[in-house]
């Protein structure tokens, strides 16, 4: 399989001397679904932003489909990003916000609108097409943002805690939808979450990070076949993975705290 | 004497006598009609030579400027004395502002129309069909409109800038012969001028005036001021040099040469006519009456004005 994303010994140090990432090394292949788990402030968002070409490593290199991300996003728009905050244009309606990436790309307006309405229906916002972002609840805004990313049918999808503001039911529905889309479209997904269950449910691999400086502490391959319905949570293998991930996560932190 | 006055006035009761003595030095202000120039010579002479002080006055001379209205300043009491043109005095009177002329500086008006050399006007009727830079609302232009056929004049407001005149050979520009022709020459532009007074419209210019109320209540002060004023002019006529230096000091951007030119040319408008035999500043009722008639005819004046009302020579006789 081809490499989709490669972090090559990446350091990221901000001007105020914060070391956000240190010696970060990870390769993600095309079609993978990798979840990032790690304490708050360990550099997950920073890593995703670099993949999207929105930040540059201080040392090392990030490659996306064999190119530097900046080059890549200048050629295509095959990357979509669900930011940690919804990041909607306040002067556009929900529908127009979702249409934005499609419109930027050009093409048949009717098709685009149909597609936008479809994804909005999927995230449960069919009744809010004409609403402005300020008229939405926090979870609804996040769902618009998710719809916007999905509508663009990207080859590489970056999601930064997309479901954190959602209730369990909505979250489960969207998890299944996301898995469906991922399999159908054969996209590559990098997904940040704090929810270990979610990470195990969704991913082919989990990248566990530790903080200060942000490092990759371990990588866990999740060997559960797809499709994975919600009911898989009762599967003992599932729970083993959950325990393993939690352990890696906590262990790392505890060791640090002990220091 | 300025400082002494100030300190004396702030002293206590027991110094009252001293205060009364120094109070004879009376502060007054005169607003000019433009930045200081040769045409204000005598006013500065009186200051430089100390004539005001001798007459018990502490005079502040405040130069005017493009938009400074001396009439309004005097009428509102922010200055006691002012300078305006004769016709402006009548225009003010027409608005109910009671002013009285005390002395005229220019016996004859130095106002003129300037043309490029080779494009002279013989008669003001020749202006018709040409471009004229003239101040909006100026009285003699209204008079001209009645006297000559100016229906085809391209009338453009004159704002003090001559660039467009210089750029257009055919154009005509309002000027004072005491100034602009000289400046044009300096730039190598040859010009001709034709005096407005050739048309028979010849107001007194740079007229010293006060309000009627002020005159009635402060006759002594007025008398003292006018006498210093006349004395200043008489001295200026004989030896202008120190005064011109002073004027250059006050208005440094105006060159010394320009001041001298202004004085040379101005002399022939100031110290002539009635000034020669009846003394500096003299005004005749007949000429005021003519002006009133001309302006009434031009429609500038709407109220009846008695010539004898508008001026007085009474304070000139002293010297």
């Amino acid at each position, binding site marked *: 399989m081809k490499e989709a994303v490669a972090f090559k010994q990446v350091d990221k140090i901000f001007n105020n001397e914060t070391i956000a990432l240190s010696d970060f090394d990870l390769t993600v292949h095309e079609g993978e679904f990798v979840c990032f788990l790690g304490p708050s402030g360990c550099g997950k968002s920073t890593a995703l932003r670099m993949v999207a070409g929105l930040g540059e490593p201080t040392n090392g290199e990030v490659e996306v489909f064999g190119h530097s991300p900046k080059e890549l996003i200048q050629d295509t728009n095959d990357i979509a990003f669900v930011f940690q905050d919804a*990041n909607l*244009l306040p*002067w556009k309606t929900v529908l127009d916000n979702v249409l934005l*990436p499609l419109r930027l790309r050009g093409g048949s307006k009717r098709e685009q609108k149909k597609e936008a309405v479809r994804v909005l229906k999927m995230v449960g916002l069919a009744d809010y097409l004409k609403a402005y972002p300020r008229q939405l609840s926090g979870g609804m805004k996040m769902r618009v943002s998710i719809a916007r990313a999905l509508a663009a049918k990207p080859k590489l999808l970056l999601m930064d805690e997309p479901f954190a503001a959602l209730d369990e039911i909505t979250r489960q529905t969207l998890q299944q939808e996301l898995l469906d889309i991922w399999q159908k479209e054969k996209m590559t997904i990098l997904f940040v979450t704090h929810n270990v269950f979610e990470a195990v449910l969704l991913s082919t691999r989990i990248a566990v990070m530790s903080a200060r400086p942000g490092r990759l502490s371990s990588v866990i391959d999740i060997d559960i076949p797809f499709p994975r319905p919600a009911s898989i949570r009762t599967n003992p293998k599932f729970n083993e993975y959950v325990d393993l991930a939690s352990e890696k996560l906590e262990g790392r932190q505890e060791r640090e705290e002990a220091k | 004497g300025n400082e002494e006055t100030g300190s004396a006035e702030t002293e206590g009761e027991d110094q009252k006598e001293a205060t009364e003595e120094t109070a004879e030095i009376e502060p007054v202000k005169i607003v000019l009609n433009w930045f200081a120039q040769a045409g204000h010579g005598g006013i500065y002479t009186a200051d430089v030579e100390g004539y005001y002080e001798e007459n018990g006055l502490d005079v502040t001379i405040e130069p005017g400027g493009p938009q400074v209205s001396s009439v309004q300043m005097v009428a*509102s009491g922010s200055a006691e004395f002012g300078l305006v043109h004769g016709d402006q005095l009548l225009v003010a009177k027409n*608005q109910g*502002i009671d002013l009285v002329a005390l002395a005229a500086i220019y016996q004859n008006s130095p106002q003129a129309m300037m043309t490029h050399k080779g494009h002279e006007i013989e008669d003001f009727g020749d202006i018709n069909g040409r471009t004229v830079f003239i101040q909006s*609302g100026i009285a003699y232009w209204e008079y001209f409109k009645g006297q000559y056929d100016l229906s085809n004049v391209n009338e453009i*407001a004159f704002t003090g*800038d001559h660039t467009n005149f210089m750029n257009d050979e055919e154009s005509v520009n309002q000027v004072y012969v005491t100034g602009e022709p000289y400046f044009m020459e300096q730039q190598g532009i040859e010009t001709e001028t034709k005096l407005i007074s050739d048309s028979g419209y010849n107001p007194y210019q740079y007229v010293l005036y006060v309000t009627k109320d002020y005159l009635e209540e402060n006759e002594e002060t007025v008398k003292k001021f006018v006498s210093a004023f006349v004395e200043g002019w008489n001295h200026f006529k004989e030896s202008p040099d120190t005064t011109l230096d002073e004027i250059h000091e006050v208005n440094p951007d105006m060159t010394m040469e320009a001041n001298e030119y202004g004085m040379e040319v101005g002399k022939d408008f100031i110290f002539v006519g009635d000034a020669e035999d009846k003394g500096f500043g003299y005004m005749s009722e007949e000429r005021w009456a003519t002006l009133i008639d001309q302006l009434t005819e031009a429609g500038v004046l709407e109220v009846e004005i008695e010539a004898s009302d508008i001026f007085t020579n009474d304070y000139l006789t002293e010297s």
Partner: protein
Amino acid sequence: MAMSTTELTSKVVKKKINVKQNRFWDTFRAVYLGPVIAFILFIAAWQLVPAILGLQPYIFPKPSDVINAAVTDWSLLWPAIQITVGESVLGFIVRGVIGILASVLLASSKVLERSIYPYAILLQTIPVVAVAPIVVIWFGAGFNSIIVISFLIGFFPVISNTLLGLNSVDKNLDDLFTLYNASKWQRMWRLRIPSALPYIMAGLKISCTLSIVGAIVGEYIAGIGGGKGGIGYSITVAAVQVKTPYLFACGIAAAVLGISFYLLVNLFSHLLLRSWHESAMKVEK
């Protein structure tokens, strides 16, 4: 559930009707009472001050003098107003269009902005009287020059505010557009201009009040003569002829025009922004 929705709505409607009767008086009290009182006080003070200070009408006219003068010379004032309105509206449009286009151009490249923006400041800070002769030589005395001068006087607030607005785009939204590989013009059109709208409108509001002043100064400087002039010309003549009440009437006419113009632009701005910007939207709680 559908029923309960209707129920609820009808409950609200009832409440609304009860409120409606007092509505007119309430809005009047909240919105217009203050301004009306202020206006009355203003006029009263203006009427009284000259009387108390014993100022003559030719020095400081009372409102009654001004109204008198305006009525008497209405036949002069009215055409002047019309001319000035024409000039200022055109001046405003030219300024708005050129100002915004120029800002967009400058904002599209840092190098351009750094290289050219200083000349915009230069145009603003160089005294108009210094360049007026050249303007008149190039554009002829009269209308064209007035528009050019009015442009020079009021375009800087537009360009300055617009440029600031275009450079104040939310960083996260900017990232979004980078990510979607938006072209320069897509970014400009879909992100920077909408974000800048509040600033642009603020610039236009300042600029529109300068429109009337610009036209008047333009008339004054560009040498409209011979009675074809607008308020600027009238003011000059009134000043020369010491017709102070009429001069004030001209001034007040200009101010009223300016305020109306402002209110118009303000209304427009409000309509544009109310759906999303804090300064214009009615926050619902």
